[in-house]
């Protein structure tokens, strides 16, 4: 383990930098202010490498290759190039593909625009779609929230992000972490009449009113789960966080 945490020196665009061995190259690039786009990466969860936007070229010894930077482990002596002809060419195609898959996403349109891509030569499957199957929502749900409510289903061009059987996500606690982390804002959350709805997973959860101030502050199902997880009596969540202080 100690071995892995050791400091290493490497180059970005010809300049020398320090990093920690095995850390995500994308994380390091961002730390040093390099502009590398990405949609499926978040430092709080495991890297997945699905969106293919964070492409860079890495030279290791004599070999120079194109790779995604999010899942590339920083190593001593590597040289990183973020704006080679190859990187720019392939990034453009990736953005065009994303525009075709999620034409309804304003975020994707803006991001593509930033890199000079305003249209796509590819066929649009679903004009309403905004999801790019980056998988951040399910990684957050599994790794951070431990609700395991949603996951990928199917494969290939039939791959989807769904609750089991495309039905209501019965394990969803309505925490909204997936909504927060989604890069294209395509999950949806709303609160009406003391019911919180996570729209994409068809989940409607009645919210619990605070015994003291009466404000409905969180889904009851969520509070039950939390109580289980932290081994507290259910009455622990009778009050809202403000009144509990």
């Amino acid at each position: 383990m100690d071995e892995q945490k050791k400091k290493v020196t490497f180059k970005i665009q010809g300049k020398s930098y320090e990093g920690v061995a095995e850390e995500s190259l994308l994380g390091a690039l961002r730390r040093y202010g390099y502009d590398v786009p990405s949609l499926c990466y978040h430092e709080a969860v495991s890297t997945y490498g699905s969106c293919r936007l964070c492409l860079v070229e890495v030279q290791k010894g004599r070999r120079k290759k194109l790779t995604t930077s999010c899942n590339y482990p920083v190593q001593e002596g590597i040289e990183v190039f973020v704006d080679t002809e190859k990187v720019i060419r392939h990034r453009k195609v990736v953005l065009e593909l994303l525009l075709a898959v999620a034409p309804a996403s304003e975020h994707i349109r803006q991001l593509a625009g930033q890199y000079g891509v305003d249209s796509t030569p590819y066929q649009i499957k679903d004009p309403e779609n905004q999801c790019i199957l980056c998988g951040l929502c399910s990684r957050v749900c599994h790794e951070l929230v431990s609700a395991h409510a949603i996951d990928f289903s199917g494969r290939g061009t039939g791959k989807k992000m769904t609750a089991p059987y495309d039905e209501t996500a019965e394990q969803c606690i309505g925490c909204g972490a997936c909504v927060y982390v989604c890069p294209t804002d395509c999950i949806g959350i709303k609160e009406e009449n003391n019911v919180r709805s996570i729209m994409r997973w068809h989940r409607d959860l009645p919210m619990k009113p605070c015994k003291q101030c009466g404000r409905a502050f969180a889904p009851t199902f969520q509070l039950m789960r939390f109580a289980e997880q932290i081994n507290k009596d259910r009455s622990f969540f009778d009050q809202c966080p403000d009144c509990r202080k």
Partner: protein
Amino acid sequence: MAKIFKTPEELLQYVERVQAERDPHRKVITVCAGTGCCAYGSMKLADGIEKVISEKKLADEVGLKRTGCHGFCEQGPLVVVQPQGILYRKVKTQDIEEILDITVKKGDVIERLLYRDADGKQYQKEEDVPFYKNQMRLLLANNGLVDPNNIDDYLAVGGYRALAKVLGRMQPEETLAWIQKSGLRGRGGGGFPAGVKWESCRKAPSANGLRYIICNADEGDPGAFMDRSLMEGNPHSVIEGMLIGAWAIGYPGKPQGYVYIRNEYPLAVERLSVALQQAREKGLLGKNILGSGLDFDININRGGGAFVCGESTALMASIEGFVGEPRSKHIHTVVSGLFNQPTNLNNVETWANVPLIIEKGIEWYTSIGTGDVSENPWGGSKGTKIFALVGKVNNTGLVEVPMGTTLRHIIYDIGGGIPAGKRFKAVQTGGPSGGCIPESMLDLPVDFDKLTEAGSMMGSGGMIVMDETTCMVDVARYFIQFLADESCGKCTTCREGLRQLGLIIEKITNGQAQEQDLDLLDELSSTVAEGSLCALGTTAPNPLLSTLRYFREEYEEHVRERKCRAKVCKSLIRFSVIEENCTGCMLCMKKCPTGAAQGEKKEVHKIEQEKCIKCGICDEVCNFNAILVE
């Protein structure tokens, strides 16, 4: 007999006894029990032979053996009468009595059942038939001799002698050095030197000594069935190879074995399970194997029908009970693979090569094949390679040849050329990761590097011959569609890229494409190949790019002239009746599913274009060649 061999000597003594008990002159009827022959009814045939032998009370005179795949699947069911080695093909149950009365009893040959080549020349012995004569069958040598369900058969032909040799007098390091010097390269597709992989895995740190030895039997390339036949026909050769690997890579630690095998291969699963059990009963798997101190056993994991699971990291994820999504290999699987332990994965055919190398030596092995591997393990391709020769070729089946054999030799001398007087167009190698090679390159010597240079790859060894009735655009469409379905769907470039490539090709086959669509294919292919994570994605455009490279004129014809010269692409063809040939027999009318074929009895028929769905059934059923496809 459940005797456990405690030392290599005990094993060898047993082998001598088994061999001595066997009468080399005994008459035996062998029936091929490979999947191909089974589908032609060989098991029923074998049961029938057994019955007649007992009815005629011939059990003392002649034996019956159900063997592994003989490879000449086209001619099944295959029967070979030993010891003469007389080959009968397309044998039916009504031939059984005759075979017993004439061939077994009298020693005469039944000419009707002999193989005849295209020129009408007749062959008696299996070894003389051009299909076999032009091969070098090392791995497949015993397939037709052993009963895969009987370990004694394998022992009798020298099986497990290589294991006895390494466990008796070779250190793991020495064993490893042999594999390195042999130049053996992975038969699963990439051709990575096995010795290099083995060494990395042996050297990788493992706190608890656990190292996984995996056999990749997820033979997913459509058109390839070499691994299936090895597992069905000679499963112990694979087990022996893995045992030797466990010794070289994992001893003195704790090696553990897995075979990941396709669910579509039920017979192979069954035969391998039986073989594993028999090996355990003899102490060839388990604790302290042959007194060497090596503990090793092998689990079977069945796949679930996913091509991508042939990729090593996806395969390992699947064994762990997860979906088969590949992960990046910046940290190699030999260091951290299955359950994050050092893992060595080779495919079935690679493992089957290992006992041969140990048994016959490095010098012998390196004398077969191309190049020089003494300095550089990538310097050549050594040994033989098994190909599944299929498609539009006369002698379909399994073919084993030395590396470096030309495509022409394989397709024409062994395969007997193209059927029905049609013209050769291309041969597709390497499965969906490979490419199509044109006629001008038929003299290409086949090895790992030459095929890659030609824009294809060795792959696991499928070789699909295509003739003038195969449309190359349609072939590209087929593979891209295949991969779009089989992609795990993780990478945008692979999932969406393949979907878009498929849509563009479909436009071409529908006659709706523009010239610039061909450029778009080029540009997108490049991103799919360079921007995807695993080998499925990075090689996915190969079938498209190779056909664009060698058959661009066919693409251009589809685009510019809206023409499909192979008459495959439905939107570009039209069916009509050739009036002078039509006898008015009404057969096409009866069979036409939409009522498009019309007419009166004994009068010339016609095909109503609006109703025609171009299913081609009229052409297929017409006995008078009266349907014109244009």
